[in-house]
């Protein structure tokens, strides 16, 4: 079930909300938790019930191991056993993820190298597997470090399946979720949280269905359908995807945070105006914050982090980001995207060490353009698509200017072979594309993000109109567009 669907907004959510709090009101705490787990699994199974056994068995496996790891035992022998158990559990999780996500990628590459013809398995990726695998790996490590308290399976199932964050995060720690579910005050309806939750949810819904889905049209045309692009079309394509991805994913996260708040649960912030970043390190402190946190805590630091000299820092950064790249998808374009970001972080670190400083605007311009260009590899289904878009972005051989300029600038045709016509036609764009791109820049650079807005949230008439209007706009936009969130594919 999608957050941006009528069945979710008008049926699943109200029913779940009212029954959950009704059961709590009747002091049936365990039943309310059980109901929330059941609802979350129903929400998950709505796409495809065949994935349900996978998530259930993964949960059971990790719960049993996590419990064993959590038991305090000081003997040397047992410590060794615990480490082995942890390694075994992590490897098992990665094998499960790898089987579904990377088997075909591996077969394709073996075929390519050996000129073989091993048939691919064409496995469908179980929804949310990347997210629930990472979340559970973090639980195992935290249990090993004795950072999780012991809870029963119902609590654990709630931690993994809680529907607002089940499909695409934020990736949460056990220790930041379970105390919230246990708090008695959180079992009672809280109108302040409901108002705030609806406010955040409505903004997220608007970001997804009105903004992201508008940019999606041009990005899809440019990447997947057009076979040639002129320079404006190529830039419009890449920028459209840059905006689409941000508004789509941060919109999803806002919705998740808003929904969790309805149940008195505070999820961690995941986006903090990432396109305002003035260097690549700053970007990763603002973009998909919970994934960055996971990569830092469970990959970068265990690899040695900053502790083993400058060269190791560089290799650790590189390794972490290449893993981050391949976590997003099975393809060399994702690996390359990870490599680019790893390289940029290494470069930034070396640059900072030398003490060079740039003007803020120039630093932003370089950072934003680097991110925009790197997203081209992230988005492209094939290398050729990435090359097509990038080559067109930097090619001066194919410049088409709008028709209305032809009377004033027609000398350009003779001297520079610049043509006039529908300058943005191959991506089904028009003047609205330009307006939306300007609007996108204004939003990402000059507006407060949702979390900043929620801090200053007031009960006033403006907010009533604002929430009602963006909710109305989003709901009606869902009639024409019904698209999944981009991060559901990862």
């Amino acid at each position: 079930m999608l957050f941006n669907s009528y069945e979710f907004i008008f049926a699943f959510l109200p029913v779940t909300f009212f029954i959950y709090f009704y059961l709590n009101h009747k002091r049936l705490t365990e039943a309310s938790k059980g109901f929330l787990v059941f609802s979350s699994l129903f929400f998950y199974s709505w796409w495809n019930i065949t994935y349900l056994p996978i998530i259930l068995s993964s949960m059971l496996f990790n719960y049993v191991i996590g419990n064993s790891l959590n038991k305090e035992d000081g003997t040397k022998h047992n410590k060794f056993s615990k480490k082995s158990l942890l390694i075994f559990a992590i490897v098992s999780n990665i094998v499960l993820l790898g089987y579904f996500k990377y088997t075909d990628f591996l077969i394709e590459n073996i075929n390519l190298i050996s000129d073989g013809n091993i048939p691919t398995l064409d496995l469908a990726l179980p929804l949310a597997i990347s997210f629930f695998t990472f979340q559970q790996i973090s639980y195992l490590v935290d249990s090993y470090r004795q950072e999780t308290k012991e809870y029963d399976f119902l609590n654990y199932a709630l931690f993994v399946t809680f529907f607002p964050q089940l499909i695409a995060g934020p990736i949460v720690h056990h220790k930041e979720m379970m105390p919230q579910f246990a708090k008695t005050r959180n079992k009672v309806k809280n109108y302040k949280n409901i108002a705030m939750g609806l406010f955040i949810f409505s903004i997220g819904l608007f970001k997804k269905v009105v903004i992201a889905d508008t940019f999606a049209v041009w990005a899809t045309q440019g990447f997947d359908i057009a076979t040639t692009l002129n320079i404006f079309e190529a830039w419009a394509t890449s920028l459209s995807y840059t905006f689409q991805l941000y508004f789509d994913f941060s919109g999803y996260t806002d919705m998740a945070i808003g929904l969790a708040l309805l149940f008195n649960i505070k999820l961690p912030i995941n986006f903090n105006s990432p396109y305002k970043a003035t260097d690549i390190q700053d970007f990763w402190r603002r973009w998909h914050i919970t994934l960055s946190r996971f990569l830092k805590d469970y990959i970068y630091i265990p690899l040695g982090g900053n502790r083993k000299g400058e060269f190791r820092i560089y290799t650790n950064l590189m390794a972490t980001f290449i893993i981050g790249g391949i976590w997003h998808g099975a393809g060399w374009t994702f690996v390359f995207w990870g490599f680019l970001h790893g390289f940029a972080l290494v470069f930034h670190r070396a640059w900072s060490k030398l003490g060079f400083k740039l003007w803020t605007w120039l630093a932003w311009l370089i950072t934003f353009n680097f991110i925009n260009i790197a997203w081209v590899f992230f988005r492209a289904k094939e290398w050729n698509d990435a090359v097509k878009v990038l080559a067109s972005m930097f090619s001066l051989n194919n410049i088409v200017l709008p028709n209305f300029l032809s009377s004033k600038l027609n000398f350009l045709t003779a001297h520079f072979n610049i043509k006039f016509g529908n300058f943005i036609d191959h991506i089904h764009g028009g003047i609205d594309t330009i307006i939306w791109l300007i609007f996108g820049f204004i939003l990402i650079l000059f507006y407060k993000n949702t979390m900043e807005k929620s801090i200053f949230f007031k009960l006033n008439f403006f907010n009533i109109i604002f929430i009602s209007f963006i909710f109305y706009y989003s709901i009606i936009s869902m009639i024409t567009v019904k698209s999944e969130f981009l991060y559901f594919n990862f």
Partner: protein
Amino acid sequence: MRRYKKFLIQIVIVTLIIFIAFGLLNLSLYKSEQSMLWINNSLRIKENYAKSINENKIVFTAGSNVLFGINTETIQKELKIPTVNMAVHAGLKADYIIYRTKKILKSGDLIIMPLEYHNFTWDGSFSEVKRDYLLTYDKDFFHTLPILSQLKMLYSITPNMLLNSLYKQYFKKVKKSKIGENYNSDTLNKHGDETYKKGSKNKVLTKNYKAFKIDKFYKTQGLKSINQFAKWCKKNNINFYISFPNTINLKDYHTEKYKIYFQNLIHYFKKNNIDFIGKPTDSLYPKEYFYDSNYHLNLYGSQIRTKKIIELIKRTVKYK
């Protein structure tokens, strides 16, 4: 807490008011005259010509694959029977295309309908072209639609679309597009065929067209409309043949998945005693035969296509 409760109630009330207000505003004010003008003019011209024919005629209708792809003038010369091209836009959807066609049919006529595939697979969901046309030129038909369809159409109009529409209505004159700039009823010949289609536009040749989407075969709204129309034709002594559209010959159409779909489609027609002309692969052509979209044949392509359809008519049609 009470303040927050009151705030939430106010949100619910204001949201309801916004819903009702925009529904009414969209119904009474939304129009899309400029973009629907050529459709309305084309339909009027074609209907007037069809109604002016006293003897039995051959009528072709569907969406723009027929508008561009079939030269009814040539067919008339070849078969010596008055022939009309009633097709305009596939986005009007099967039910409305049929509704308009019924108005010009008489006992003894022959109607051939090579509908676009997305009309065969049409599940009843609304189309923007149909919404814009009905709200601008045919509110009577709009009100005959089920209430849910009406609401879907009305609420698919966003506030900025409404503002845009009002701006155009009050500050911009509706005028016919120049020939070549946009579609235009001035380029139709007497029979209703589109004549402005020389060569192939760049956007046809530089685009990766995808095959129409198919899921499981089932009795879609499109197929139901065809079935009902077939019964109506039988009752009114009209000779009805369904057929398949001209479109780009994509590899996908020769895969097992599409072969099965085409077989199912033909099986459906046979099962429901709906006569059909040709088979889907008869009207698949190379990209170079198309003018500005995957359904719009150019002049050369339409000559080939017309020749083929004449051959099929001669071979298949039994005049009752």
